[in-house]
């Protein structure tokens, strides 16, 4: 897959529009998924994704063949999406209110993983939670959602997240912790597997 990407990049650099179109088609859904995870609005994510590809084309000559094209394009997508969030944040402040208190109750440790099981096969519950995922993500504050999506979709390390978001490493870890806690509580609640009241055991 990576080899085909590099071949397509090479042809696109030479001015082959079909090669670039093929690159777009190969990566469009995952790019859109990353954008949606960050900006949470479907139409905005569509625009962000297209803008990311236009920027990719504009900077194609700067792409280094030894790195992954997929990683590169996701980095650009995340940058575009975060820029959009930063521009829109003042007018969307009311959208990022904290999750309601009852939802913030931590699900009993292990309840999510137990319910989903270790079987990698897609279960009904897994499909149900995936379908509610964007709804749950939409309830997170921007800063929590962004760090969680970049971590889980792009696989960024703590250091990379700190650099990308211009925040200290400790803040990355703190935001990830809170984002996960809220998401697990919400997803467990959606699935009817919440067991509130369980606290730390040690």
């Amino acid at each position, binding site marked *: 897959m990576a080899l085909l990407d590099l071949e397509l990049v090479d042809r696109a650099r*030479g*001015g*082959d*529009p079909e090669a*670039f*179109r093929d690159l*777009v*088609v190969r990566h*469009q*859904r*995952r790019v*859109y*998924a*990353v954008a*949606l*995870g960050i900006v949470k609005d*479907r139409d905005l994510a*569509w625009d962000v*994704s*297209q803008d990311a*590809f*236009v920027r990719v*084309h504009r900077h194609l000559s700067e792409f280094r063949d030894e790195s992954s094209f997929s990683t590169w394009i996701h980095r650009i997508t995340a940058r575009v999406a975060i820029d959009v969030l930063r521009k829109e944040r003042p007018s969307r402040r009311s959208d990022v209110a904290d999750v309601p208190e009852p939802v913030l109750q931590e*699900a009993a*440790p*292990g*309840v*999510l*993983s*137990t319910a*989903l099981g270790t079987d990698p096969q*897609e279960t009904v519950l*897994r*499909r149900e*939670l*995936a*379908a*509610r*995922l*964007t709804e749950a*993500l939409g309830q997170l504050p921007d800063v929590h959602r962004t760090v*969680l*999506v970049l*971590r*889980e*979709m792009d696989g960024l*390390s*703590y*250091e990379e997240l700190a650099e990308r978001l211009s925040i200290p490493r400790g803040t990355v*870890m*703190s935001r*990830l*912790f809170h984002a*996960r806690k809220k*998401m*697990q509580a919400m*997803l467990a609640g959606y699935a009817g597997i919440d067991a509130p009241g369980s606290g*730390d*055991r*040690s």
Partner: protein
Amino acid sequence: MKCAGAAPLLGSRPGELDPTEEAALSAHLSSCEACRARQADHEALARVVENGLLGEAARRDFSAFADGVMARIPAATWRGAPAPGLLGRVLELLRRHRVLATASALAPALAALALYLYIGRTSGTGPLEFSVEVTSEDLAPMVLDTSDGPIILVGEASDGT
């Protein structure tokens, strides 16, 4: 280490924590069933996040997406596109060779500076008047004394100026 201290470290990947944190977390996990369960929850959540967002993308109709991207890219960038006019070619040349554009802009200023320095160095009581010829093939200015007066060379002109 207690659960409150271990919780933010859960979900880390090998090598991401410093050795002290790594050792403390490892020791805590070996004795804390709740935090091992939380760790498992993190892994489950990671899969749900990825599957959920990719599933959302899979449900969307992307048939017009690539066309939308291609429409936003200037057609002139593709091979076989109609040749741009003279102005378009000049602008494209300047866009691609910003150093050249900067050098072109600086060349007259460098020539003027060289002339000023030369006159200042050779004059006794005041500026001398010369008939001068200026060329600007490149960046580095040089002044030649000739029987017709000084000639300023900007760059390495091989054909004599």
